[in-house]
């Protein structure tokens, strides 16, 4: 399997910048809990640690391709070109939000960029993506769908039902399972029979007579090549692939869950908070994909330290502007709650 397009220097730097944009955006979201208490409500899930996997995957898509994600959905649209201002305004529940303040952090959508929607119910988006892939197959214009979901989601019936049909019908879809080692504070080996038996989760693909592959999801080039090959396979009509992209979530699952009155914040990662294993978390930090990719590009001469700093400054400004925009955007008119119930 080979990736569709060679990664030239510009593309590599572009990938790095996207990774940094995601990291910076998520940092801003997290800081909002402290700097602007009460502005973010409900439950927010961050993509830090997943940047390489997200960018490596999204980079394989052509302009007509589509993708679906979960509640942990800030990264993909950023890499795909969605305006971070509209995203932050959405997370702040404002009128200028991507979904007019109605969806919130868990339900971003940007159909104009191929991002059709996100379900907050674990694995519920897997059949949606599969259905969009069927639509693509019928349309016959070579579109491909990427379907992102977590390791935990693979224990939900919706996963198996969908992958069987995708393989049976040879649908143009790539299933990217982001295995970050945890479902909230349940470790993969506590809930997954494969892992408990020392196997990779990609062996699940065998049940659907579908290719399954496990990769280091912290390496954007590996991700790009693997997902790219699977996208090429899907596009050529050979059917779906399951990619297990291994990574480590660098923040807690989400902000604390508490009724109004209790200020929300991001607790420590569950490795520390729940399992008393800070060493696990420290080790994961060593593998942080963002500085690792920067180091590699600099070492390879694709990027100078100066250029890297310029990018960092640009990204900081961009995301600061997103925060400012979000804070300044007004709340929607209350009546808009009824405006989009029916099409």
């Amino acid at each position, binding site marked *: 399997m080979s990736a569709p397009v060679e990664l030239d220097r510009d593309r590599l730097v572009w990938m790095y910048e996207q990774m940094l944009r995601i990291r910076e955006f998520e940092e801003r979201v997290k800081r909002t809990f402290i700097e602007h208490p009460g502005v973010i409500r409900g439950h927010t899930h961050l993509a830090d640690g997943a940047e390489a996997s997200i960018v490596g995957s999204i980079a394989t898509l052509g302009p007509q391709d589509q993708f679906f994600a979960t509640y942990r959905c800030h990264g993909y649209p950023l890499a795909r070109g969605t305006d971070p201002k509209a995203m932050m305004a959405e997370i702040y529940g404002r009128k200028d939000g*991507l979904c007019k303040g109605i*969806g919130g952090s868990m339900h971003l*959508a940007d159909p104009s960029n191929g991002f059709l*929607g996100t379900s907050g119910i674990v694995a519920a988006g897997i059949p949606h993506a599969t*259905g969009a892939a*069927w*639509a693509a197959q019928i349309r016959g214009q070579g579109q491909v769908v990427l379907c992102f979901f977590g390791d935990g989601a693979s224990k939900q019936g919706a996963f198996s*039902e969908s992958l069987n049909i995708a393989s049976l019908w040879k649908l143009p879809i790539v299933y990217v399972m982001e295995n970050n080692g945890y479902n909230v504070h349940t470790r993969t080996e506590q809930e997954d029979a494969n892992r408990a038996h020392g196997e990779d989760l990609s062996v699940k693909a065998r049940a659907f007579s579908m290719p399954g592959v496990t990769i280091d999801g912290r390496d954007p080039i590996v991700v790009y090549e693997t997902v790219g090959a699977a996208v090429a396979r899907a596009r050529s009509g050979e059917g779906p692939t399951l990619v297990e992209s291994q990574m480590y979530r660098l923040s807690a699952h989400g902000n604390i869950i508490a009724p109004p009155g209790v200020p929300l914040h991001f607790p420590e990662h569950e490795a520390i908070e729940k399992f008393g294993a800070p060493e696990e978390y420290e080790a994961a930090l060593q593998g942080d994909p963002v500085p690792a990719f920067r180091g590699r590009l600099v070492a390879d001469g694709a990027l100078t330290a100066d250029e890297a700093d310029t990018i960092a400054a640009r990204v900081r400004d961009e995301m600061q502007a997103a925060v400012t925009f979000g804070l300044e955007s007004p709340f929607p008119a209350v009546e808009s709650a009824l405006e989009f119930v029916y*099409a």
Partner: protein
Amino acid sequence: MAHELPFIAAIDEAIRLEMERDDTVLYFGQNMATTENEPYVDAFGKDRVRVTPISETAEIGMAIGAAMAGFRPVVELYMAEFMLVAMDQVINEAPRFRAMSGGQVKVPLVLKAGFGFTAGWAGQHTGTIGAMFMGVPGLKVVMPSTAADAKGLMATAIRDDNPVVYLHHYLLTLEHGEVPDGEYLVPFGEAAIRREGSDVTIVATGWTVDRALGAAEQLASEGIQVEVIDPRTLAPLDTHTILESVDKTGRLVLVDQATRHASAATVIAGEVAEHGFSSLKAPIVQVTALDATIPYSEPLEAWVMPNEDKIVAAVQRVVGAAPVTA
């Protein structure tokens, strides 16, 4: 012009006409299109007509995804209760995306399912679960009782830009009726007055509409003139027509094949008790199934169901011909 068709063929006619008219309409589900010479496959090809595995969550979920991507899927589900394994997709996915995306996407799809096969199908296949889909913002619910409505409501459902649960009563499957030729649309949210009357209003749905008409016939011979209303769609619900009728008759009997606390009847009672109170001259009486898992044995099944006699008795109570008991 019209022609006579069994109920089930009327539904079929609507699906075919819509598929001819609009090539984004898809039709799929279990145990259909399994051979090379199925009429739907012949007419519309294997892309648009497909058999699926027994995977309701994927079937309905895929319909959502295909709808978001621009198609209008009709999912053949056979029995409404099979939706229960995929209820999240029906209740908490399909109707949510329009709102959650701030109006960016739409999810036009039809979930076609039979219900109420109280013909010995026992505990798990006989439910009348239509009311479970009511009150879900974004979701529409259709329940035809005549062949003509079966056709016209299916066509409307397919053209609607929202998810629609289309529930057809199994016991009506072979009931014949006059069906308008060609394109025929019945609007959502408009109840049909099946029989006019001045003394008592009966609202009934699905298979119970004919039971209510039968009871009305019987009551007419006693000099009680019953108006029979069939809402046709549970969501949107045409409370207006019901309220107008109650304004005229002052009395309301609700008939529903569901159990008492899981019925559309109770929703209608609530609306009239609030918005039609001043018209009411008597209690609103509900005739529903008894609170039992439907038994297999024929006499027991018949005993728990609403029927003409129970409807007649309820009407007699509200007109004062029989005492109202608590």
